[in-house]
């Protein structure tokens, strides 16, 4: 049962606490030090951009935060759960309940219609059919796609697909919305729409982490963590830039 995973609990200071996380890979004879000791706290309702050049370790950090990967050493706790100790199956449960992924390439299931795509996390979470339908519709209303529910992903524009992906990420009310270059496959106008949607979600209390290498995407966030060579180079908080935030 998934009851062992705590839901949002306001008494906890940090949603996410990373301590001295090291991640090394061996590729053939070569050892790659993707993360060389990262320590990081992210609180509830933070809006964080993770930046860095390619090879800086930002993808690895994202995988660790998203519980797709476990650190080689160091600790990572998400909502008080120590991720490093978990089995594959428990990690799947954590991803299911606590993480909402948004990918650069949308990553929808092509043969399933929009509603079914959004229902998927609920199916894997064991939610009953009626409840599933209700939550999925609610999430689709949130992204403004309630009248496209029976369409297949390939019948939608890129921006619409990304909104479906956002609905899917939000449907289980996750602790973290984790986006990886969410506008990378979109034209700038559509990208702006998506980022405005992120801003709105943040205003409504959602914790958001965006991995990007685009400055203008990072400017939407209130905190930018810059990685270089597997370590945090800078971690600064910034004021919201006028004119980007309060749209819609």
């Amino acid at each position, binding site marked *: 049962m998934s009851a062992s995973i705590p839901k949002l609990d306001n008494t906890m200071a940090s949603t996410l606490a990373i301590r001295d996380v090291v991640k090394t890979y061996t590729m053939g004879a070569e050892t790659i030090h993707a993360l060389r000791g990262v320590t990081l706290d992210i609180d509830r309702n933070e809006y964080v951009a993770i930046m860095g050049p390619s090879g800086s370790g930002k993808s690895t950090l994202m995988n660790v935060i998203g519980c*797709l990967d476990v650190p080689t050493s160091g600790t990572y706790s998400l909502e008080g759960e120590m991720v490093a100790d978990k089995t594959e199956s428990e990690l*799947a449960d954590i991803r299911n309940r606590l993480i909402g992924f948004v990918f650069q390439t949308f990553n929808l299931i092509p043969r399933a219609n929009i509603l079914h795509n959004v229902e998927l996390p609920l*199916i894997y979470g064991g939610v009953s059919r009626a409840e599933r339908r209700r939550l999925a519709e609610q999430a689709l209303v949130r992204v403004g796609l309630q009248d496209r529910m029976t369409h297949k992903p390939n019948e939608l524009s890129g921006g619409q697909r990304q909104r479906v992906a956002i609905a899917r990420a939000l449907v289980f009310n996750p602790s973290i919305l984790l986006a990886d270059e969410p506008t990378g496959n979109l034209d700038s106008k559509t990208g702006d729409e998506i980022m405005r949607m992120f801003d709105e979600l943040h205003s409504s209390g959602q914790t958001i982490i965006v991995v990007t290498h685009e400055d203008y995407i990072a400017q939407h966030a209130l905190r930018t963590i810059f990685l270089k060579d597997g370590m945090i180079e800078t971690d600064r908080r910034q004021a919201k830039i006028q004119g980007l935030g309060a749209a819609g």
Partner: protein
Amino acid sequence: MRVLLDVNESFRIALSAIRANKARGVLTTLGIIIGIVAVITTMTAFNGMKNAFREGFSSIGSDVLYVSRMPWVIMNDFFLYRNRPPLELAEAERLELSLEGRAIVNPTMNTRRSIQFNAARMDGIPIIGTTEKQQAISSTVPQIGRFLMANDVRLRKRVAVIGVEIRDLLFSGANPINKKIRIGSYWYRVIGVMEKQGGTTFGGPNFDRQIYIPISSFVKSFGGARGTDVSIAVKAPSQEAVEDLEYELIGEMRKIRQLRPSEADNFTINKLDTLMGAFNQTMGIMILLGLIVTGIALFVGGIGVMNIMFVSVTERTREIGIRKAIGAKNFSILLQFLFESAIICLLGGMIGIVLATILTSVINANVMPASVSVPILAIAILLSLLVGVLAGFVPAYKGARLNPIEALRYE
């Protein structure tokens, strides 16, 4: 609850995956189709033969024991039986006396003779000397005229009851009652024609092509000469009594023949089971061959399905990554692909069933009575399901074990 949802989702995914690759799915199932057609036809043919056999020997009756010199089925060791003394009519009478009121005893003798009516002639027709008690032992009755009666036997009348085929061939279908036919060199009057018994597909005697005459007349006409052996039919009062009766018969016969305890029986108790045993042994070999063909077809079919499932898993590596990222466990992925291969195989099974049903009706119309039965269909379905699960397991396991990060990166 959760597993049920998984099953539901797996089913849905599997169906849409198969729909997306219809031609591939159908081609993949070819081996399964052939295997299922083979298994159904083998079993149906076996059942058909078994029924034909039962029908052919139905007049023997399963509650009747036959005391004879030789076993009906001699697999080997013919020399063990060759020197046995023939059964005599007198022994039959003594047996009848000792079993009086407990079982019906009917002695028969038989030979082969040419028969003649006007210019029509048939050679090598089985002539059976019997009594009126034949009617109590066999279920068949005359379709016209009457059967032998006690008086015919007592008075050694030269009367004959003929099989329906003899009527057709010797009399060209004309009414034979009271006509005189020549059996060997004796004239006999036809008093009845037996109803059709049929069912001679598998080497049983043709009961429609024989003639019954009183056993007393038989002795007079064709002699109690050596080699004309008596066979004694003994009908048990009920099916349950057959086993006891068999022991009793052995005891009585040993008494009649005054065998010492050290001596082996020099007679045999034959029964329908003996024939069934021999039949089953022969059929066993045929079934084995059928099953080998089936096994090979299903094996090859299973390998084909496994191959296609590897392709399917590889094609959907990215989808597996997505599903895992949003919370699918390895088990869910495993189930998804197992369902897919099981459904592909079930599909093949269904097509196989349809083809086999058509084939069976062709066999039924042209070769022998055959029909597809529910248990055979159930076996066919279970078998195709089993192949699907077995063939799908390794590819499904491979898919389930994929690392989500690598799977998501897969192009």
